[in-house]
């Protein structure tokens, strides 16, 4: 089976600067989400941007359904954008404060031309319907559509961002630290939501995170990055359960744990 998206021997460096990524190869199989784990400076956000087709790698290739991603090929990019959507880390920066939730969530539908086959008069109603369905799927009330981002809390805004990401029914959700900016109790709810969407919609979740607990909860595969290189990758259970690379071991040991429940 071909991976949906794949980074093949990818390297990235800014002009006249040290390499941010070196020889990174990561593949995302349908249904087997991958977590990109590492600390600051590991290059995971850069890798995410490359996988999102926002920049070209300096060396190596990004592949979509087995063929190299050409950023200039508009038809191909449109198909790519429809299948690969994203959720950002900061819920206070990822929603346009001057747009209503309905407009925000329906933007992919408009920009990707998903409603163009319908007669003009029917488009608005179709968009509203799909927005309502997406809002329902993320657990937001229907009247949220007419409100503005500043009326919602961080966790709710993140749900709006997720609704926007799923409205065009993508195959892959690329999430950049989707819950790290949220409160603890909200975090669990959003993690549960992502797990549920993964099950009900066959969504493959690729996640950048430094939070190993969230990774363990959402992604069956993990790639550990240290200073721009993949030091270990494989099944989450194996890599985090019995890490082999010393950096992975340090990472796993550093996670603060709750005291064990009394038996």
């Amino acid at each position, binding site marked *: 089976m071909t991976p949906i998206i794949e980074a093949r021997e990818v390297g990235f460096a800014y002009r006249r600067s040290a390499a941010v990524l070196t020889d990174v190869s990561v593949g995302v199989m349908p249904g087997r989400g991958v977590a990109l784990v590492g*600390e*600051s400076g590991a290059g995971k956000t850069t890798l995410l941007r490359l996988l999102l087709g926002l920049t070209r790698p300096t060396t190596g290739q990004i592949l979509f359904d087995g063929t190299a991603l050409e950023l200039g090929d508009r038809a191909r990019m449109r198909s790519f954008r429809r299948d690969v959507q994203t959720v950002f880390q900061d819920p206070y920066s990822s929603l346009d404060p001057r747009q209503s939730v309905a407009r925000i969530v329906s933007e992919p539908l408009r920009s990707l031309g998903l409603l163009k086959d319908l007669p003009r008069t029917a488009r608005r109603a179709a968009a509203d319907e799909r927005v309502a369905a997406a809002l329902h799927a993320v657990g937001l009330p229907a009247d949220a559509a007419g409100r503005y981002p500043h009326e919602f809390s*961080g966790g709710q805004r993140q749900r709006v961002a997720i609704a926007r990401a799923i409205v065009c029914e993508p195959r892959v959700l690329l999430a950049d630290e989707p819950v790290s900016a949220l*409160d*603890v*109790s909200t*975090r*669990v*709810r959003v*993690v549960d939501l992502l*797990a549920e969407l993964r099950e009900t919609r066959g969504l493959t979740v690729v996640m950048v995170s*430094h*939070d*190993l*607990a*969230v990774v*363990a*909860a*959402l*992604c*069956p595969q993990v790639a550990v990055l240290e200073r721009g290189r993949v030091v270990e990758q494989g*099944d*989450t*259970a*194996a890599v*985090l*359960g*019995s890490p082999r690379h010393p950096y992975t071991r*340090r*990472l796993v*040991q*550093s*996670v*603060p*744990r*709750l*005291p064990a*429940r*009394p038996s």
Partner: protein
Amino acid sequence: MSLLEVSGLRVRSGDGRDLISDLSFTVDAGGRFGLIGESGSGKSLTALTIMGLLPPGMTASGSVALDVPGMGRTEIVGAGERLLNRLRGRAASVVFQEPLTALDPLMRIGHQVAGPLRRIQGLRGRALREAVTAALEEVRLAEPGRIAKAYPHEISGGQRQRVAIAMALACRPALLIADEPTTALDVTVQAEVLALLDGLVSAHSMALLFISHDLAVVSGITDHVLILKDGVAVESGAVLDVVNGPRHPYARELVESARELDAALDGLNAPDGGTR
């Protein structure tokens, strides 16, 4: 003997809203106390109130008393600036969350660490320089000489936070308040800084007031905790009691959420590799 006694503390915002209501707790000398809460719970505000650093427009009522050996018992609420200045650094000091903004970007590290040493211990010249080096070594910074000459942006976040800790500890306060000191740090750096804090607090028999939203972190470094929600204390007690048997519904929700995520890490060692 209680070092810090907070009774019926109320903090009101400029437009009459209660940000903290009727908060009471005590920290004994050498004790480890944790304040747990999410954003908006008032936990950071509590730290500011104890230091007499409430922003203008906010008013505090009730009592916050610091009873420090050698300085007697001082009431913080309503105290004048001169009295508060004598306490700051000597009786109590704070380590804040954001290492980027905790240090003056235009001043070299050595100069900043020297500040409290010069002001409170009255050191000058060579004695001062040696004290600065000793302070930087105490927080396990390698090459203290190089770091002392560097500017904040030239060292890493973890190193900056160690410097902030060094400055807070410079004059051996009786009470160290740590407000989310490791939240902005990478997880491996966090583990190191927490271990450092733990060691130093024990070595100098200081009392620690540790403020955080992270239940796992707090339970590792404190003995007693208090959970704040919207400025109101909803549960308090020994940390193991609260974590293993929370009573208030909000406390239960918090503990359950933390347990759920924590359990995901346990599942890794299960034979079937349990991803949910």
